[in-house]
């Protein structure tokens, strides 16, 4: 009888920061990774838990759809590896963090949200509470065009921003 623990161990190899080397292939916009010297080409880094565990990375082959390995915490990688990886992940996971809320107005059909994000100011529309959900203190907002915004920590938002957010949560 194979337990889930055994199956997990066999299916997902956890690599330590020193065991992995990362190279960016500009032609394919993918990675070549080396685990203890063994190369794997055409690898895509994936955040399986982009909100609840954003530093956990799964490396997956785009050629064989094989899960090659996982890195438990991207922050433990050496600086140059981390910067390279973050650069690639940045466009794959464009989830701006909302740092302030100017105004949220209900128009009768949509809530129009005017916010300040870490990527600049933005105005977007949501239908209502079904477009907003919470993970602990984080608030995830998906607008009508399926863009995703994140409030990293509701409790740490300013008073005015909290009051505005109360209209939609």
């Amino acid at each position, binding site marked *: *009888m*194979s*337990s*889930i*623990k055994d*199956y*997990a*161990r066999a*299916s*997902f190899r*956890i690599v330590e920061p020193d065991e992995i080397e990362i190279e960016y292939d500009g032609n394919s916009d993918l990675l070549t990774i080396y685990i203890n010297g063994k190369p794997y080409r055409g690898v895509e880094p*994936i*955040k*399986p*838990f*982009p*909100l*609840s*565990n954003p530093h*956990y990375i*799964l490396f*997956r082959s785009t050629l064989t*759809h094989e*899960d090659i390995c*996982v890195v*438990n915490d991207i922050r433990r990688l050496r600086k140059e590896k981390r910067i390279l990886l973050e650069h690639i992940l940045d466009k794959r996971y464009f989830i701006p963090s909302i740092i302030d809320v100017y105004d949220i107005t209900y128009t009768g059909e949509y809530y129009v949200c005017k916010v300040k994000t870490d990527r600049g100011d933005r105005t977007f529309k949501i239908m209502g509470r*079904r477009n907003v*959900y919470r*993970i602990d203190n984080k608030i*995830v907002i998906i607008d009508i065009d*399926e863009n*995703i915004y994140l409030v990293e920590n509701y409790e740490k938002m300013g008073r005015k921003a909290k009051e505005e957010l109360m209209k939609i949560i």
Partner: protein
Amino acid sequence: MDTDLELSGDESIVARFESDIAVDGRYGVSYLIVTSKRCIVCDDKGRVIHSVDLSNISSVSIVDYVGNSEVKLTLKDGRVIPIIRFTRSLRREFNEAVSLLEDASSIKTVINEHKEEVERVKFKMEPLLFVLRFALPYKLALILGLASGIAGIFLGLLPPYYLRILIDDVILAQRREQLIVIITIIVVTQALSSILGALRSYALSYVSLKVMHSIRVNLFRHIMQFQPNILDTYESGRLISRITDDASRVNWFLSWGLEQLLRSVISLASVATMIFTLDTRLAIIASAPLPLLIFGVSMFSKKARWVYHYEWRRSTDVSALLVDVIPGFPVVKAHCMERYEEDRLKNRLNEVVKAGLRSTILNLKFFPMLSFIISSATAIIWWVGGLEVLGGGITLGVLSAFISYVSQFYGPIQTLISIVEPMKRASTAAERIQSLMSMDPSIKDTPNSIDLDIKGEIRFENVWFGYTPYTYVLKNVSFEVKPGEKIGIVGPTGSGKTTITKLLLRFYDVNKGRILVDGVDIRSIKIESLRRQIGIVSQDPRLFNDSIVNNIRYGKPDATPEEIMAAAKIALAHDFILEKPLRYDSPCGEGGSMLSGGERQRIAIARTVISDPKILILDEATSSVDTITEDGIKKALDNITRGRTTIIIAHRLSTVKDVDRLIVLDRGEIVEVGTHEELLERNGLYAKLWNTQFQEKLAEAKVSG
């Protein structure tokens, strides 16, 4: 019950069961008494009708007739004696009687259950006192709120007193220098009163919020102790209403109602003292309407209780319908039953309107009359008081102070009357909460229940079970599953396949017989220990309105990210999850509405797989996925079912043909057991079902091909 029943020296009564059909066959009373030596039946006068030694009884049975049933004893000499009849309302009680008579070893258990029942019934106190315990942890805040409210009452008595001084001793006496002093006192009094008011509001709001939290958590925790069969007694909408509506009504009483009641009583008493001190004659006039008001209130209360209860029941009917219909929205649309459902809702809403109008009419019969009586009394005081002032009997200041006090006198009376309605509502809500909280889960652990590390052996021994006391769904079912064995249970719809899994999970207890896991009766195993080690994937899995990762983690709260992904991989869910924008953090929607049927099913399989169950039940688990996905899931499940006791329930026989053994059920009975090949060779029900499905597949292939 007086009886001519005589017991021998060492004989004692073990249990007594009261029937609702008398010995002459009319509605009435008769008794079945089980002693340590005999089975006795008495009539309502206590005369012994039957007396049979337990040692002479070979078996006991209940025969169901239309509208009533009868207990029959089969004696060792072969005679069958019908001993007592009862209506079907008492079927459950007499099932216990039969079990008691059949199995001497169960006597002790049943006696204990009876004792518990008696204790529970005796455990009665006034519902509002019962719910008062929720406020006890916040007694300091409650006392602060009450104390500031009461202090506010006494402060409120001061302004009319100073009004008299202001008019008589300052304005009319032309004492200009006193004016500022009196005005300052009035302003300070009002300021203090406002501060006390704010303190009271904060303290009582604090108590209110805390009490609401406590009632809801306690109710939820209590409901969670029950098994799914509680939904046979309460519809889910009604349970939700207990936690939401009833909790807020009781909360209002505990935080605000009680305070208003106390404040009004104290205020009434203190204002009465003041007006009697000022002018006895006018005070008597002011008190004259009181008997009429008290009589009116008591009449109103009697009627209001039933009217409000009726109104509440009508609104919960609407909630229950909505809770039932809204999740079934696709079914309604698919059957074009929108008008039908609209009519059903309209009918129930009409009932709400009627009930609401009934209570409005009741209020209108009472409250305008009350206002008129109070206004008339005030007018009379003005008239009599005015004459007294003109005649020099009292001063203008006294009359003004008196009128000011009178407005404070009727205020609490009006409050007392107006809180009758919410008090009644709170009282009925408290009654319902008390009745739910006093209910004991029928299936629960005993002090002797054990934790068992399950290996995976299952044995059903002569199991009889019915959801209602009248009809058995399983009849004398016996089978054994060895550890690591994979069996399939098949049979026509309604043959009792799913019931077997519900009994194994102890959602219900068997009526007769027993179920053993690793040789231990499951009633002796801690429910949590049993269920943690049994995993089930059902036909229509329920996902929660949460992220995919949290739905999978439901099966193992401390699962690592790798275990979560591994479980999803086994269930062939990993790839489609990674294609979603938020991957494993993607929301599932209410009941999994943001996922397709196949996706829901695969996440449910992952949720079960991750818990690493010792016994795995797949109850039509792949019926909602296409055959290609089903094949994939079957291959993946092979990894996890290998060496693990697995019960697969399937209507589609191709799903189970490769299992170690097949059990064929028909109308609650096992009719065949064997491998796929053996059963085909036997040419019985299984072969018939197989051939029918094979022919259907062939026909489908011809049509499509």
